[in-house]
């Protein structure tokens, strides 16, 4: 699937929840829990994206022209948000990742997580993923 297709899928998934933020967050938490764990020996300092509050570890591989991300975080909501990003961006071509506008985050009603002042820094996470992709073009 293309990035846009996956985004569409996610938007539809979240539409069911409507304004019910509790279910929405439960879904994110579930995604966080099922995020395939990053290899423990890859949780090194150079793979940390420092947020103000929670840490994120991101590992990037290039396999058969596709970027593969694995990641982890100590906060479960952050982890759920990364799971969402990984689902959208992993297994895609580097060029496509760099171009992705990630606007679906607005559309699923998690816009507040995109604020540049947000304590967990979803934005810096996305930037880091794109930077790693760019390195591999």
């Amino acid at each position, binding site marked *: 699937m293309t990035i846009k297709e996956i985004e569409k899928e996610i938007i539809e998934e979240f539409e069911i929840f409507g304004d019910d*933020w*509790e279910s929405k*967050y*439960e879904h994110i*938490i579930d995604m966080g829990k099922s995020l395939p764990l990053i290899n423990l020996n890859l949780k090194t300092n150079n793979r940390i994206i420092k947020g*103000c*509050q*929670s840490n994120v570890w991101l590992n990037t591989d290039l396999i058969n022209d596709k970027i593969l991300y694995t990641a982890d975080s*100590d*906060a*479960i*909501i*952050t982890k759920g948000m990364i799971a969402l990003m990984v689902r959208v961006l992993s297994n895609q071509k580097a060029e496509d990742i760099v171009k992705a506008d990630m606007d679906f985050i607005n559309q699923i009603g998690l816009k507040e997580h995109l604020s540049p002042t947000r*304590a*967990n820094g979803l934005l810096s996470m996305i930037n880091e993923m794109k930077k790693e992709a760019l390195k591999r073009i």
Partner: protein
Amino acid sequence: MMDLIKIREQFPILNQKINNCDLIYFDNAATSQKPISVIESISDFYKKSNSNIHRGVHSLSRSASEQFELARKTVANHFNIDNEQQLIFTAGCTDSINIVAQGLAKFHLQKEDEIILSTYEHHSNILPWQLWAKENKGVLKIIPLLANQNLDYDSIEKLITHKTKLIAITHVSNTLGLITDIERIISIAKKHQLPILLDGAQSAPHMPVDLKKLDVDFFVCSAHKLYGPTGVGLLYLSQKWLDKLPVSKSGGGIIKSVSFENTEYADGALRFEPGTPNISGVIGFSNAIKFINNIGITTIFEFEKKLVQHAQKKLREMPEIIMYGESDEKAGVISFNVKNHHPFDIGTLLDNYGIAVRTGHHCTQPLMQDLKIQGTVRISFAIYNTIEEINYFIEKLKKVIKMLQ
């Protein structure tokens, strides 16, 4: 008796809805909300008497100057300062500490000297001293914690050497809410003739502070944490330091005469207030003090103590909660964690119920390192908080924990 409804009515922000819920503001240790009297004193100033102060011959300037100096008297009275010239208006608590640190560096502190801090300190009472220490091979000695997270007062004497030149300590831990036994520290300091800087950022909003009785050398706090506006704080200097502390920041308005070669500085507080001060902020500050005095700072302390006790009792009933620095004598602050859950997750979900808490290290990373944790969830109270809010918070906290499991 305090009329809580009448008090709450004075805070317009309490009508805000967050995610369709009533706002429950439990982040008062970061900054308090402002009563309408404070907000309006600021707009009134700009609508009726705005002007630069000092030296003006026109009526507006005279009126603004008088309001400014009256504000100094009001605030000085509240802290029981005899000579209001000992009260300097600064840009905030952090600014005040930097002024002291820079002044002492010029006059009192020698290379390789030592300063005693406590494990509780907020970064604002660490970094100014660390800056000095780095440049002067100075040493920061730290009062450690006991197992119950109180300060180990017995250790202080052992930290003091002939190179010790200052004790800089917080009056209340902004993370734990525990109150420092400042009388004990003062008596140790007096014995060794050490000056004391007391960081009142978290005590001034919650409990009586009598500077005449305490007789410390420096006392600092911020207006924005005690119902006042941002951008203004105070620095109290004992009479000795008012005369002796060198100026580290200079500029217009604080002189008797200037030539390119030489400057004769003004006397009193003015010497430390270069440039146009935060005039509206100072007026707002004095109105915040009036608001506090209308209720009575002791009433505030007793009321908030009840809130703390109630919240601690409720939290204690939850086995998954770890509390830090539990005590019945606190200044409005509780820090806790939920076992196996990150404070950020708790804070984020509580926010969706309209409950504003702070999570993280609260600018006390060394304390976090000591406690071997990343951060905490902190709830902190003010005079407008209620038992009902705490009950609602506990209910939602339980729900949040369930969501995370």
